[in-house]
């Protein structure tokens, strides 16, 4: 039995009477893609924020690489190897694609206290950044300002920045959102390989991608996990069909 890289125990977040997440216990095993799906407002983003440390849970624990990380900050969780991509791009829009990626490489070194030589002339930062951009296929636009990128390219850049940190696990919030079908297929192929480097907790609306990639799926409805299992198990699950896939089947 493999030890999970990432695990939550009974994560709960209440906003007043509303429970955005309710006793969520999921885990992420080495080498897998674990997809979290659910209708809008099911609490997926709250779950991610709690795992990554930007929202403090009302109850429950987060365990990463065998250690309890519930009380440490988002920044420290990143330093221990939790790579996050955002649903709404959190990129420096006035900076170029390359600058955004170099920022990731700089973060990985942990030493921003360098005041003289231009950041883009640091070859070690630049090579990490450029290889990450090549992997997601953004090398041709690396000198473009981020606010001039298409929505889909920004999603790719999100992934590239996460790659520069060489994380032990990825938490990705809707990386496919806004990608055209071609981009979506390309990113799907890429994530498929990426899982061998580090497992991915994938929150995604694009069902084609989820069914193509996921080893396991958890279904979140009204903050509760109503089912976890393989693609087949989830397809057959009556509760899931009623709550979520109902219209399609």
């Amino acid at each position, binding site marked *: 039995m493999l030890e999970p890289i990432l695990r939550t125990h009974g994560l709960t977040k209440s906003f007043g009477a509303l429970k955005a997440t309710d006793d969520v216990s999921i885990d992420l095993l080495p080498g897998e893609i674990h997809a979290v799906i659910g209708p809008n407002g099911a609490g997926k983003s709250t779950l991610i924020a709690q795992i990554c440390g930007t929202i403090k849970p009302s109850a429950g624990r987060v365990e990463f690489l065998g250690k309890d990380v519930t009380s440490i900050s988002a920044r420290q969780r990143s330093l221990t190897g939790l790579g996050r991509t955002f649903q709404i791009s959190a*990129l420096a829009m*006035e*900076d170029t694609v390359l600058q955004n990626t170099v920022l990731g490489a*700089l973060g990985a070194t942990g*030493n921003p206290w360098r*005041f003289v030589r231009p950041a*883009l002339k640091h070859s070690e930062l630049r090579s990490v950044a450029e290889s990450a951009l090549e992997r997601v296929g953004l090398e041709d636009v690396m000198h473009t300002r981020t606010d001039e990128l298409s929505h889909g390219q920004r999603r790719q850049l999100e992934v590239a920045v996460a790659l520069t*940190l060489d994380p032990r696990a990825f938490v990705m919030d809707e990386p496919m959102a806004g990608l055209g079908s071609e981009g979506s297929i390309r990113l799907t192929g890429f994530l498929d390989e990426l899982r061998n480097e580090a497992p991915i907790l994938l929150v995604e609306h694009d069902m084609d991608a989820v069914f193509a990639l996921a080893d396991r799926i958890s279904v979140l409805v009204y903050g509760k996990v109503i089912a976890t299992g393989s693609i087949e198990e989830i397809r057959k699950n009556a509760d899931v069909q009623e709550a979520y896939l109902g219209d399609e089947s």
Partner: protein
Amino acid sequence: MVNERLFNLLILAILIGVPAWAYVSDEPFIITLMTRAVVFALAAVGLNIALGLGGLVSLGHAVFFGIGGYAMGILAFHAQTFTPVTEWPFVIEGTKSMPVIWLVAVVMSSLAALVIGMLSLRTAGVYFIMITLAFGQMFFFFTISWSTYGGEDGLSVYVRNGFPGLNTLDPIQYFGICLIILMTALTFNLFLAKSPFGLALNAARQTPQRVETVGLNSTRLKLVAFVISGAITGLAGALFADLNRFVSPTMFSWQLSGEIIIFVIIGGVGRLFGPVVGALVFVALEHLLGGLSDYWHIYLGFLLLGIVLFGKGGLIGMICGREKVDA
């Protein structure tokens, strides 16, 4: 659109050419006016590091300007009265040496920026503006009541402080000192903006969440920027005091903090030469319109309004367009 580098060179030519012309045609007043612009520009270069790179709208930068000024005032006052600054725990004498005064001004204003920054950076947005303003007012009223050093009347220094090998009372020589310091600060600013620190700071302004996600501490980046910023503005304060041979609590006034922000906004927030252009325009208006009316600020208001409404990126943004990206 004019190439920004070319435009900056033009500004530099004005900074050198106008005083050179004034020197040849024996117009010391113009040289003094240009020195005033250069010193204001230096203060605004300091603010531009906090505001342009770090996004920190400090309405309290007069604190550092004033500390620099009083560092000069107090040291020179004790030197001209032949009394020690303090006798405990050890004797510190006053001094008339500019390099020593500059060092004290930079150290004291950095320390003040460190303390003010640590407290203010716990807040953001309008609260940050208000808390920096509050610190400014505290210093302002403190110096008003500080009777040892003239209280409300301020302190006069009879002879300008000295720099080894130069005659600082000669307007053109003092201008040269100030210009070299400004150019040094601009060079430092240029390197800083492109450095890894500058990249991270710039990102912390735009998206602090991202900076934290890559494992960097955005608050600490901003604090260091605030300290550097305060140090430069403090140095400008010492030069300003020596230019006027006078310091008073008005150096700490919130109007002065506002004016430093105005220099940066007129020229262009975050643009290398923005503070220089802003300070030149301000001093030019002050001189040209100040003769027409004591209320010349109303025209400054119109200019500011026009720039904020119609010109993104200040005068440099209007003339040179958007900043070129680094490759």
